């Protein structure tokens, strides 16, 4: 497991659990997504404050985050969250795994959350991150998760 870095701001130590936050492309991606959607900013801040590590995908559509905490089984954690807005005022949070086969374009859905507001409860974001960290364990499903999530999801 990659050790988390510590960012020092004045005398306070802040754990930065988006492991690749200092990558210039990732930093720019987080800035742009946070600017475009206040909910993305909330999620990034929650991930930074979370006890478990995450990484942000710089090349994805929307804000895409992958859990980096290994699973109890020893297998790598494949859980991903994608947050995007199909239209202003409408945000979708999609939970999925990518295929293990390098050439496959398939994605494995675990459902999603449909948000029609620009505000969100911090506890709800914590649920999402815990769901990711667990590798999508059924007992960690967020309360508002819609398993049938019939939206076209961009890559």
């Amino acid at each position, binding site marked *: 497991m990659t050790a988390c870095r510590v960012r020092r701001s004045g005398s306070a130590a802040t754990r930065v659990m988006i492991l690749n936050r200092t990558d210039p492309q990732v930093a720019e991606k987080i800035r742009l997504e946070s600017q475009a959607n206040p909910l993305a900013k909330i999620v990034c801040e929650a991930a930074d404050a979370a006890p478990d590590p995450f990484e942000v995908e710089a090349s994805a559509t929307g804000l895409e985050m992958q859990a980096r905490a290994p699973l109890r089984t020893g297998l790598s954690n494949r859980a991903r969250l994608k947050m995007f807005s199909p239209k202003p005022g409408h945000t979708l949070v999609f939970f999925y*795994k990518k295929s*293990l086969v390098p*050439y496959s374009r398939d994605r*494995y*859905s675990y459902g999603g959350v449909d948000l029609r507001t620009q505000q969100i409860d911090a506890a709800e974001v914590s649920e999402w991150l815990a769901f990711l960290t667990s590798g999508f364990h*059924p007992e960690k499903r967020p309360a508002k998760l819609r398993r*049938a999530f*019939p*939206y076209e*999801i961009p890559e």
Partner: protein
Amino acid sequence: MAPPATADRAVESVPTRSLSPCELEIDLFCKGMRIDPSCALEEDARFISRTRAGLGSGLEIVIPGPIKDVWVNVPVEEDFAQQSCYRLVLESGQYAVVDERQNFRYAVSIPPEPAWYTRTTSRGTPMHKVGVLQGTYLGIYISNSCGFWYHSPALNCKFCATGLNVGVNEVAVKDVDDVVEVARAAKEESAVTFVHFNSGYQTERDLDVAAPYVKAVKSRVGALIGLQLIPTLDFWKYDRLIDLGTDHFSFCYEFHNPEYFARFLPGKQQLVGQHTFFRALEYTAKKLGKGACSGEIIAGVEPLEDTLKAIDYITGIGAFPTVCIFRPTIGADMEHWPSPRYADMLVVFRHVYEACRKNSIPLDVTPNIEVSLIVQPGDTRYLAPRDWRSRWYGLKMALAKQLAVPYFWWKRRPKRIAASDVLTPPANGGLRDATQASQT
């Protein structure tokens, strides 16, 4: 719903001889396979596409054999597959499945991706999002997901991932003209003979929704047509669909044991009823003749004796058993359940062979229908005892296959169909199993 203890792989006996193609097929369904970096699947294979209940999430391979080649959709994405003793390798241009327990090597081939997978229909829809090859037939999920997933609380089948797929990997609503174009491409370029339509629960409009697709493909393309839908006791609808060109019905009742049916299939239990599956299967099997319809079950979850009873029941009414080896697919409620034990599944498929033989169910008589998602009854000929009964059955099937060639050629021609694709009951209200209706 906690999963049972994981099947203990350590106590499984390691084969001391090479497995037959059917035995290997069964073991691959049970254990899955890892893909070695030597493989060049992006150049050689059909891309993996999860559709329907998620069973198609594996890698399609073909195991050559003296009786027949066996098509298998091998699990590669699930957690259990990552711990498999089987590994797919590419050595000197030849693919092989290696059993790392004793280093046995099985030569296999990888079916190439059809050219039409990368094309779009004239409406601009990617063809692979309309239908995919599963073995040598075209599978099309026709409707917008499954109604069981939209109940609150959800009533989805616990092994199923259908509600998780649509919209993510597939087009949610299939256009009839798109379906016709894809079926035509699959027939012309992939020699497809059979188009299989499947749907989740459509609130008692399941058969009505399918009708336009059946008529369009039968009349404009020409192919054998199969339907796998939630059943109804309005039997006149089956008559109408046969008029429109349906050649085959399959009924996924999954578990023979009523307690397992109720526990794992809450939607089917509450909104349909196990008896509806039985009555519809019995009606259509009688109507279309021996071997034309199938009862679909899952092996590896309910007790073995119930699976054997299911096989006896299905073959006893003249249908063929479609037995899926339980696959804990990604995202399903049962994702964390263990995959079945090979030794148990061997018992099941030996029984499939014996039950088909005793009831003279035709095996592999239809042209070019190889199903990769299940162990086909025809594959179980590799498990047959070497006695005169098996030889006699094999001879009868070989003869039936030859005699059926002109019949299936005629059945696969585009037909002029006068019947309407809007299903309306006959003047007398139509045949309905009224004695059973009150039980739903």
